[in-house]
């Protein structure tokens, strides 16, 4: 896998595309430019990794691609919808049905079981209870945790928690999965398992964008882009 | 039983200050002179020299009278909340008006200062209180069908409602202290949970459990005392507002709410104790777990 200095992956309209996006954070003194004119597109069935040193803007880019933040200038389009023109409720609907997130810290709700954590986005999406149960079981089986459904996060290992988080992220059959340092808190072996899972999901047709420091994980990707100081290099 | 609006109150004895107003004109013998309480004068729209008609029945017969003066009655605590309208007549006039012959509702007695030789029983001159008590005892021993009381006994009898109110307030106070105590313990417990990570770091770098406990207790007591001071300040301001409001409402100089030194001591003491107790529980809970557990590892 090689870095693509052109920074634009030419393809038919992808799942998500960023066009000349910048992100500036106003700080006391001097504003901080986290992103400077980044253009990027990701298609279905692609695993794209974004690598770079700490503070280069990888996570910021990921947040923009997922619609949890808006660019200062430029545009981000998710399945044909420009995020800058949408209100909070509309963006939330897009995220609920079309985008899944996986984070380094898992962010599972500790008072819910693995099954309930995975079911949560489906509850918000008004999936009927029967369908919810069926899908939850299948998802946890898929990630190898069919026998840990009733366990709470405190009773799971780091790797198991991350797999539950992945199952939750794909609960509503999203088109796009964004993973921010998914193996950051895992040991090497477990990290490989998670990486393999993400790879398999992209093979199933999901567009997966992966931000990572881990070169081995980055190497699993179909495409790799490198960032430094807010630009694609 | 109280006599209603159209009837006259008769208050015996020098129990009120009389507001001296402009001299009234001389009163013909068949027109009775009366003194009006200021609330009654205001309600009737009359002043010194104005004519009135008196009756014990709404339909008459009416006795002509003239207002000799308007006075400000002493407001008894038992009358707070009521708005009595007072009028004073000469006793024979009211007895005639009410058709009560020579009846009276009560008789107030002023005794001469005690004097004379010391009785053999005590060997010393009687005090004013002893003399009064003796007169009351002798009067009650007679079978004339009335009961005599000293002023102190009467005040004690009439204080019944206030004693009840005092007990009521004490009971309410106990409940609010209970609610506040639970509230304080809850807040300190929440605070303790916030301290968990700090305590974990402190233990990791080698601070002894004793120092940790001391720190938590000092924080707890400090928060409790600070809260107590603020509460006392708020209570004092509220007390001023309550007194101002009720004095204006009931037109009285009575004190309805008072922050006493004993109250200050009690609230600060209870506050500090509860804070320290909550802090002790918090410290125990926090130290139960190891430093890494405190940090969530």
């Amino acid at each position, binding site marked *: 896998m090689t870095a693509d200095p052109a920074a634009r992956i030419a393809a038919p309209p992808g799942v998500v595309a960023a066009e000349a996006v910048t992100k500036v954070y106003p700080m006391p003194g001097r504003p901080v430019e986290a992103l400077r004119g980044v253009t990027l597109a990701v298609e279905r069935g692609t695993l794209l990794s974004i690598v770079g040193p700490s503070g280069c803007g990888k*996570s910021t880019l990921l*947040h923009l691609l*997922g619609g*949890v*933040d808006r660019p200062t200038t430029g545009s981000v389009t998710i399945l044909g919808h420009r995020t800058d023109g949408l209100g*909070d*409720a509309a963006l*939330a*609907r897009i*995220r*609920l*049905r079309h985008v899944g*997130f996986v*984070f380094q*810290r898992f*962010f599972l*709700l*500790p*008072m819910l079981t693995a099954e309930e954590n995975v079911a*949560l*986005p489906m*509850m*918000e*999406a*008004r999936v009927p209870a029967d369908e919810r149960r069926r899908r939850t079981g299948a998802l946890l089986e898929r990630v190898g945790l069919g026998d840990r459904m009733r366990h709470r996060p405190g009773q799971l290992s780091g790797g198991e928690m991350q797999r539950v988080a992945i199952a*939750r992220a794909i609960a*509503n059959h999203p088109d796009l999965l964004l993973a921010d*340092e998914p193996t*950051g808190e895992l040991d090497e072996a477990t990290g490989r398992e998670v990486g393999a899972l993400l790879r398999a999901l992209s093979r199933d047709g999901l567009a997966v964008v992966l931000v990572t420091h881990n070169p081995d994980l980055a190497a699993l990707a179909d495409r790799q882009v490198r960032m430094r100081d807010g630009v694609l290099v | *039983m*109280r*006599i*209603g609006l*159209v*009837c006259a109150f008769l208050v015996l004895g020098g129990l009120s200050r009389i507001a001296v107003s402009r001299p009234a004109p001389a009163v013909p013998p068949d027109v009775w002179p009366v003194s009006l309480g200021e609330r009654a004068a205001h309600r009737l729209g009359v002043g010194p020299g104005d004519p009135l008609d008196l009756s014990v*029945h*709404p*339909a008459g017969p009416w006795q002509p009278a003239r207002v000799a003066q308007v006075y400000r009655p002493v407001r008894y605590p038992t009358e707070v*909340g009521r708005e009595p309208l007072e009028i004073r007549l000469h006793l024979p006039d009211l007895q005639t008006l009410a058709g009560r012959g020579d009846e009276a509702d009560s008789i107030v007695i002023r005794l001469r200062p005690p004097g004379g030789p010391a009785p053999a029983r005590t060997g010393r001159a009687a005090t004013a209180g002893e003399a009064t008590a003796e007169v009351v005892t002798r009067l009650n021993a007679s*079978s*004339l*069908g*009335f009961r005599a009381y000293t002023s102190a006994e009467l005040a004690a009898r009439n204080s019944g409602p206030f004693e*009840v109110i005092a*007990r*009521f307030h004490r*009971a*309410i106070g106990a*409940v*609010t202290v209970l*609610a*506040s105590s*639970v*509230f304080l*313990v*809850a*807040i300190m*417990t*929440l605070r303790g*949970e916030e301290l968990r990570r700090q305590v974990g770091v402190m233990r990791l770098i080698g601070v002894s459990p004793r120092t940790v406990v001391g720190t938590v207790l000092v924080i707890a007591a400090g928060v409790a005392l600070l809260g107590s001071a603020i509460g006392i300040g708020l209570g004092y301001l509220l007390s001023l507002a309550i007194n101002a409001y009720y004095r204006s409402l009931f037109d009285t100089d009575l004190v309805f709410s008072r922050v006493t030194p004993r109250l200050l001591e009690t609230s600060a003491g209870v506050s500090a104790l509860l804070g320290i107790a909550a802090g002790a529980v918090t410290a125990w809970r926090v130290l139960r777990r190891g430093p890494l557990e405190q940090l969530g590892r």
Partner: protein
Amino acid sequence: MGPILFLAARTLVRVPARTALVVLGLSVTGALLLDMTMLAGGLQASLGSVLSRLGFAVRVVPRGTLPFSGDAEIADADRLAAAIETQPGVTAAVPVVGANLYVRRGGRRFPSFALGVPSGTPGAYTLVAGADLPARPGPPSGGTAPVVPIVINQNMARLDGVRIGDRVVLSAAPGTILQTFAAAQACRVAGIADFYFDLPAQRTVALAGPVLRRLLDRPPGGASLILVRMTDPSRADALARWIAGRDARVDAFSIQEFLARTGARLTYFNQFSVILGTMSAAVAFLLIAAIVTLSVGERLGEIAMLRAMGFPRARIVGLVLVEGVALAAAALPGAFLLGIAIARHLDRILLSAPGVPENLHFFTFTAAAAVRTVGILLATGALGGAYPAAVTARLEVAPTLHREVVS
């Protein structure tokens, strides 16, 4: 609303000890709030309940007085009562005389309140034993002065040992010496009754009105009070206005009007209940605001994750508000149990005040008081959740997620 209620419930049990402590505090505060809503208007509600039970819709008294508040009388009450009975909807107008008497039994003498009623008048009291006053007074027995039947109250039976069939002497004079110069009447206890407005340890007797008037040396035809029974109590106000307009010597009021007049004398308790009720609500607000704010502060990462997952801002705000309301709701059962128990204790204290009838209560549990307490507590819960909800509304997802990772 599904996931919101689900998440709120799970959040509350996340730290059970903490939630239990807060719910306990809210229960005590809520109990005080319930007590204050019971106190506000409690005495009026109690009085209204007793008055309604008596069955008289209108009361007529000498102008400017309240029933039995003084010696004033309605002259020609019999004639006025007859005129009232001609009005539509009136089934009875009962003149009643009230006065203080002395009862002598054996060597003992004690004061008693006396109620002079037309014979066989239902409603002035409720017979609990023996027989009521006869509808018509019987003929004198033999050549002796007639012994009239009386009905006594339970206090006299209990405290003085007076039984049905006992003979007592009623007199307007207190002492033996003066009694020889005053009228006295020999009586036989026919029954024992509950008189509704008796003070603790008060003795009361009911006897025929003319007999009482004779004892008091008052001319016939007068009364302290006229009680009016109606088929349609909803017309009571109209009747009261007619009576007051017809006779300038009297005031007439329906039960509602009477309660309004007595309510004006209970200002202290109403204001006290407002002040303490407000303080209780304020304490509850502070407790809920503190715990929910702390809880939100601990979960910012999770909340940001929920937002990232697709929960819109408004839903998260709703979640936090529901947490506040849920805490208040969880405290309701404890608040009601504790509140009713405390109210009973406080009621006993206030009822020990002189001059308060036994059958009245200062703290009255009504549906209105319960609804008001529930409403105030739940609203306080929502208000308590408002500040932390505002915090979550302002939450920026991306920076929060970043902060949670690096902290």
